[in-house]
């Protein structure tokens, strides 16, 4: 049955506890808390370096008011990247393949940026609905189009992350099944398929990191418009 390939995304539960609970708690346990020691262990040093660099890069285009979002955006980035990467391990469950989780991230954060813009600088926020230099007859149509594009943003954010990860996992499973089934019949073709699988897995690692980054980056862009 073709439908069985989607079974890996059904949230499995054992004794009534869904595996999603363990998968969601694990990223929190993987990052130790910084101590007040002068030189800490290697994991803490690497972690501190990465977080500082990332936050600095992310906060560059945002003004002082945007710096309030530093904690939220960096922790979101680390959470998403860890969830995505952990999902590439065998037999694990990736919570970010569930649309509900991604929409739960996208909609409130996007709405927060819009509300901040409307509250603090309503004229500028509404001004974003009309690009500069549009010919006058086109103005009404363009405002409608820009409003639609504004409301599509959270849906796009959530669905982008879900679709990328789901497609990646599905591809891995399909090609792995093909290689496995072909191995006793046509070993050479199976070897080629296995090479393809290796390349695909590397791609998936990259996609996992990139998608998390894109999510956070777009949010920071929306924030930059509205600050």
């Amino acid at each position, binding site marked *: 049955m073709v439908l069985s390939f989607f079974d890996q995304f059904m949230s499995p539960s054992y004794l009534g506890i869904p595996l999603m609970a363990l998968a969601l708690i694990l990223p929190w346990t993987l990052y130790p808390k910084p101590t007040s020691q002068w030189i800490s*262990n*290697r994991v803490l040093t690497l972690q501190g370096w990465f977080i500082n660099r990332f936050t600095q890069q992310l906060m560059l285009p945002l003004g002082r008011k945007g710096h309030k979002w530093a904690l939220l955006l960096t922790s979101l980035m680390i959470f998403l990247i860890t969830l995505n990467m952990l999902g590439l391990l065998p037999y694990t469950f990736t919570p970010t393949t569930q649309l509900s989780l991604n929409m739960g991230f996208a909609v409130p954060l996007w709405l927060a940026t819009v509300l901040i813009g409307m509250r603090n600088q309503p004229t500028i926020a509404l001004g974003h609905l009309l690009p500069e230099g549009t010919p006058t007859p086109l103005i009404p149509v363009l405002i409608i189009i820009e409003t639609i594009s504004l409301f599509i943003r959270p849906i796009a954010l959530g669905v982008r992350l879900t679709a990328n990860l789901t497609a990646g996992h599905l591809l891995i499973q399909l090609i792995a099944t093909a290689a496995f089934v072909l191995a006793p019949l046509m070993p050479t073709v199976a070897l080629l398929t296995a090479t393809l699988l290796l390349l695909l897995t590397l791609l998936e690692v990259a996609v996992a990191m990139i998608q998390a980054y894109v999510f956070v980056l777009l949010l920071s862009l929306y924030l930059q418009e509205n600050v």
Partner: protein
Amino acid sequence: MILGCKLSAPVKMADRPVPIVEKRLLDVKLGELVTWIGGRDATPNGIFAALRRGHDRYYNKYINVKKGGIGGIAMLLVGYVAISYLWEYDHIKHDRWRKYH
């Protein structure tokens, strides 16, 4: 002559009776095991404290060291994979026994 009684064998700290529930697990005799389990603190606070103790032991042994390697995190991830496999076994066994995928 010193008035005072000297015992035939000196009394050490370890000879004093310790309540069963306060012993560490490896010191509990087999017969006392049930009493030990029953007396442990199973309230949510107690469970969190036990998890915190376990986490601190693992962290200080494998990760919070001067030249930690990949072993500390690798063991954690392998354990996670193993737990995920066990958690999903009921679901995965159908994949193995199915004739057509």
